[in-house]
């Protein structure tokens, strides 16, 4: 047999070779001093490298590792995510981030920018509407012209509603009547002024033709483009603006300062509603990609088994075949007990074991739920069995066994008699 290459030696030490290959290699190692010494080096590198990587502990962080099963939460995911800064209000032992690991989709920066731009535009729209409305009112106050108030107000307020007759019919009437109405009623002007912003309508065209609105036309066009993209806030704005316009029109003959205040109030209310609507839309968008019914973590995973695996410090679950391969014989078990699982544990964590090789760990639980571990490792030729002389550490054939766990030594000693 040619000399063993380093890769094979690593595969051997990692327990990745078939039993037949292992035997062949062991035969070779028995007769080849060079490979024997190489194996020694490889073992050293393997142990040290694996230890180096294992020593890179992830630093503790808020969304990091949960040691306890997640607490059941009925709160919608987005709420949990958006409310985490208020975690201080909750008991300190139950931070929001630890309670439920959330699958948060990364936010698209382009979308955020677009939303910001849109909000800014709506703010501008509200502000311009207020200024424009006040200006119109002052002008109408000077001319004292209140012609045809009811008619024009109704037509113009209805203009943004989606029913076709309301949109089409007023177009002809507003062309003649709207200029008068605008001079006479500030509220109508406000409603007319703001109605086009969310949705293009005949009113917008009329307004664009108005000399006063000339300077604003470009800005409104931009706003209309932006607003057309987002229907939910638009509808809300339509409703609020239409609603705000009506009472405002009723007070058209009152003093200018009152109308000014009311207009501001209506604009603020519209903005608030718009903000709420925007948040709702954002929340919906954020959760849209997630599967809506989310079963509680306890229902889908087995926290007990996971905890046990962590508690038992096994890094890999293995089957009986793999255990037999590791030990060179079928693994030992405690009679009349059924193991929770069999895993591999780091040799260096088991006293008396060869630190460079894994230990087969059979994990049991007694009737009271206490964890019992039966560690086993095949002794290599030359391996000092000196460490294996403790009460609960002994040798059967060429396998070192070590029984330990949560119950007291008396219980373990009783179990030791049942190890076969």
């Amino acid at each position, binding site marked *: 047999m040619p000399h063993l290459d380093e890769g094979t030696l690593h595969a051997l030490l*990692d327990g*990745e070779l078939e039993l037949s290959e292992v035997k062949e290699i062991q035969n070779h190692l028995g007769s080849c001093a060079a490979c024997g010494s190489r194996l020694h080096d490889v073992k050293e590198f393997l142990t*040290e*490298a694996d230890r180096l*990587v294992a*020593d890179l502990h992830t630093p503790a962080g808020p969304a990091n590792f949960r040691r306890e099963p997640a607490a059941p939460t009925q709160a919608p995911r987005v709420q949990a995510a958006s409310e985490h800064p208020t975690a201080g209000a909750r008991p300190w032992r139950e931070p929001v981030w630890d309670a439920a*690991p959330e*699958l948060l989709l990364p936010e698209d920066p382009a979308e955020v920018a677009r939303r910001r731009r849109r909000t800014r535009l709506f703010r501008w729209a509200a502000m311009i509407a207020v200024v424009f409305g006040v200006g119109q009112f002052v002008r109408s106050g000077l001319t004292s012209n209140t012609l045809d108030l009811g008619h024009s107000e109704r037509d113009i307020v209805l203009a943004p509603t989606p029913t076709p007759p309301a949109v089409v019919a007023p177009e002809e009437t507003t062309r003649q009547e709207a200029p008068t109405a605008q001079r006479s009623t500030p509220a109508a002007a406000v409603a007319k002024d703001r109605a086009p912003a969310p949705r293009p309508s005949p009113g917008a065209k009329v307004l664009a033709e108005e000399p006063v609105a000339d300077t604003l036309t470009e800005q409104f066009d931009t706003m209309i483009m932006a607003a057309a993209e987002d229907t939910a806030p638009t509808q809300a704005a339509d409703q609020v603006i239409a609603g705000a316009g009506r009472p405002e029109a009723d007070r058209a003959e009152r003093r200018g300062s009152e109308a000014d205040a009311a207009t501001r109030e209506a604009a603020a209310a519209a903005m608030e509603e718009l903000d709420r609507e925007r948040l709702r839309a954002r929340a919906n968008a954020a959760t849209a990609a997630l599967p809506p019914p989310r079963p509680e973590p306890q229902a*889908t995973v087995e926290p007990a088994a996971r905890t046990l695996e962590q508690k038992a410090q096994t890094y890999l679950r293995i089957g009986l075949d793999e255990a037999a391969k590791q030990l060179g014989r079928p693994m030992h078990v405690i009679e009349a007990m059924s193991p929770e699982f069999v895993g591999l544990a780091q040799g260096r964590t088991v006293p008396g074991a060869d630190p460079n090789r894994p230990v087969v760990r059979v994990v049991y639980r007694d009737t009271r739920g206490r964890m019992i571990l039966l560690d086993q490792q095949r002794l290599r030729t030359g391996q000092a069995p000196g460490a294996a002389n403790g009460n609960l550490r002994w040798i059967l054939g060429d396998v070192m066994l070590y029984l330990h766990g949560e119950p007291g030594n008396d219980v373990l000693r009783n179990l030791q008699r049942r190890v076969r």
Partner: protein
Amino acid sequence: MTADLTQLFEQHYESLVRMLYRRTGDRDRAEDLAQETFARAVAAPPNNPRPWLFAVALNLVREDGRRTVRQGRRLELLRTEDRPTEGPDVDFERQERSASIHAALATLGERDREALLLKAEGFNYEEIAATLGLSKGAVGTTLARARRRLVEAYRSEARGKNAAS
């Protein structure tokens, strides 16, 4: 599918973040990448989840052009950080050691490093091969090279530090 996905998340998130942290040296970034990986799993549920998730995560790391800069900066921070001693000396030593290990890992070839990190997460050779697109027979050689280089780089790093101090 929802249950599967939740289970997937529960089973692999921790391990994935740990691997990504070891790979990038940046916990926040590791979590971001893990989130992104699971977001992709939502879009296309994988058949063989563990290798799939880790392969996607490693691809994300590789694709990110800022990776090198970030990593360099992070390592530099770890190395030169003169933070006030918040805890006992042990913490400081651990940080120093982590920085040295990260620096040593950074000297490895991409594939060698990835094989090593996957092995540390309990992957067997078959899974490593599936994740990295290697043949199973090549995994032993890859790991052998990776381990040797890591240890050598770490030792020389430590020697450099001792000489400097």
